[in-house]
């Protein structure tokens, strides 16, 4: 926008001078230093946070903005199947859906990734057949994370070796809640190293906090900082396996964390809400949160993802409604 109105005034925006990550080197030298740092982060008032998330939820996204948001949301989906009953057939169907979400409309964007258990990575990779859809694998004894460190690392290396482009690890919530912050930090660092392939490239690492188990917003903010300091490429809310998964409030909080981290270090980190986001309306609310909190730099699948399965079909039905003018139904999207 370049027009200056009658009373508008323009002044240079003041932006915090970025420091570098080295400025935070001291805080991870010991458990007590890390504790002091994390407990020195600004507190979170739950009512205020939730009110802000709810207020942004009242944005009315219509017509062209809605079309943009729907396609963006589709392109940000980590299309997920994480069931004990997963089979190669199921994973192949998921991969096909990721590449052609709407067989009736080839202009529909592909999803960002498919997300599977480590033993399904190879199957998924093969099924995608070189399409520009990433394979994300959960690892580190997902979802509980209750395994010994070598097991978690082996789990990670397996997935990477099988071709995973991205690793979705879980933190040890037990260690975090017991106050062993440095252990949580070291785990993430170790997994990050395990993401490195033989050729020196690395799978991108998403760190799942299981926010429903961390319970408080202060904990979520602290966990976010541990993850960011330890080298997470994404911070992610949840596994989808507990009662409370992604909410607008906890995602807003994590968006504030990555925004602040970038302002202070220049390093951009992605955010992935996962679990419980099922409707287009919900997804658009999250995109509004991104837009008005972290900003447009995050409005790409590079930096924001939805961990979801049923969301995609609702987005597709809404997309059909926008292009045809009539409401769609479940028989007009694919069951996979």
């Amino acid at each position, binding site marked *: 926008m370049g027009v200056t109105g009658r009373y508008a005034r323009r002044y240079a925006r003041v932006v915090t001078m970025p420091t570098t990550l080295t400025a935070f080197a001291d805080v991870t030298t010991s458990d007590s230093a890390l504790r002091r740092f994390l407990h020195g982060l600004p507190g979170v*008032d*739950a*009512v*205020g946070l*939730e009110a802000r998330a709810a207020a942004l939820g009242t944005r009315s996204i219509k017509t062209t903005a809605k079309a943009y948001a729907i396609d963006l949301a589709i392109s940000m989906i980590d299309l997920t199947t994480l069931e004990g009953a997963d089979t190669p057939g199921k994973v192949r169907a998921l991969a096909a859906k990721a590449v052609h979400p709407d067989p009736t409309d080839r202009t529909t964007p592909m999803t960002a990734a498919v997300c599977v258990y480590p033993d399904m990575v190879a199957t998924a990779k093969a099924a995608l057949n070189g399409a520009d859809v990433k394979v994300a694998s959960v690892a580190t004894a997902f979802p509980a994370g209750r395994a010994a460190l070598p097991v978690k690392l082996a789990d990670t290396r397996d997935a990477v070796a099988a071709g995973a482009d991205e690793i979705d690890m879980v933190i040890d919530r037990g260690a975090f809640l017991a106050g062993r912050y440095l252990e949580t930090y070291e785990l993430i660092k170790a997994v990050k190293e395990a993401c490195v392939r033989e050729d020196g490239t690395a799978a991108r690492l998403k760190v799942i906090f299981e*926010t*429903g188990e*961390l*319970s*408080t*917003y202060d904990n*979520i903010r602290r966990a976010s900082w541990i993850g960011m300091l330890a080298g997470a490429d994404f911070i992610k809310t949840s596994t989808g396996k507990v*009662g*409370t998964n992604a*909410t607008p*409030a*906890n995602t807003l909080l994590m968006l504030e964390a990555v925004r602040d981290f970038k302002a202070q270090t220049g390093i951009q980190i992605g955010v992935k809400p996962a679990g419980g986001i099922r409707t287009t309306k919900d997804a658009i609310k999250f995109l509004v949160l991104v837009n008005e909190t972290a900003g447009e730099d995050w409005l790409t699948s590079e930096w924001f993802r939805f961990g979801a399965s049923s969301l995609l079909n609702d987005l597709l039905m809404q997309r059909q409604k926008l292009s045809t003018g009539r409401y769609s139904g479940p028989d007009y999207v694919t069951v996979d």
Partner: protein
Amino acid sequence: MSESTTRLNVFKTYKLYVGGKFPRSESGRVYEVTDSKGKWLANAPLSSRKDARDAVVAARKAFGGWSGATAYNRSQILYRIAEMLEGRREQFVREVGDAEGLSKSKAAAVVDAAIDRWVWYAGWTDKIGQVVGGANPVAGPFFNLSTPEPTGVVAVVAPQESSFLGLVSVIAPVIATGNTAVVIASEKAPLPALSLGEVLATSDLPGGVVNVLSGKASEMGPHLAAHQDVNAIDLAGAGEALAKELEIAAADNLKRVLRPQPVDDWSADPGTSRMTAFLETKTVWHPTGSLGASGSSY
């Protein structure tokens, strides 16, 4: 009590009570105070606007400590005033009898009622907050509490006729709730008020909480009513014309004004309205929220 024919009485020099001290009027003026039959009783200070100004300064200075004191502490001090008065009961019976032309028994009844009034208000200091304040059940995740707080410095034009019970009945509610007071005593019968100053000074009441001036309400009142550092004014003893004049002057800084009300019987149950007239309601909000981010509400 045998009357000594050789011993001459020691007269008392009546002085103002300001900031815990007993000054004469800075103006050096006095006026003659007589009993109901016109007999000379004493010379009382004829206070000036500068005395009123000094009294406001003293009252403002005392406000922080007095309003910040615990209600229990204020209660004990008000009760202490009653104790001290009880000890000087005979003196006040005599002074009130002289001032108001009452028989000894009627004057005694008035003094007793005044002492009891201090006891009544002593009991109110730590109850008024519960009676007029409380939690408000707002529709949202907030804790919300309304509490009464003292308005500040209150100028009091004391009743003209009821020189002691009326006086106590207007001072006690003002200070019980944590305000400080600048009192213009009954013009024609100021001596009980000036003697009350001596009682207040020996009752652990911090200096400046009550300041007693004698003289003309018509002279000092307009200055107090217009004073920007006075928060409220009680017009109990102002006549109709003066009350209107003072109310108009009080509008300059939007003082709380308690208009004169007809009082037939100062010994009647005073209720709470003289306290609430000089109380502000402060409402404090704070979010409550849930115990955790998991959305559980129980």
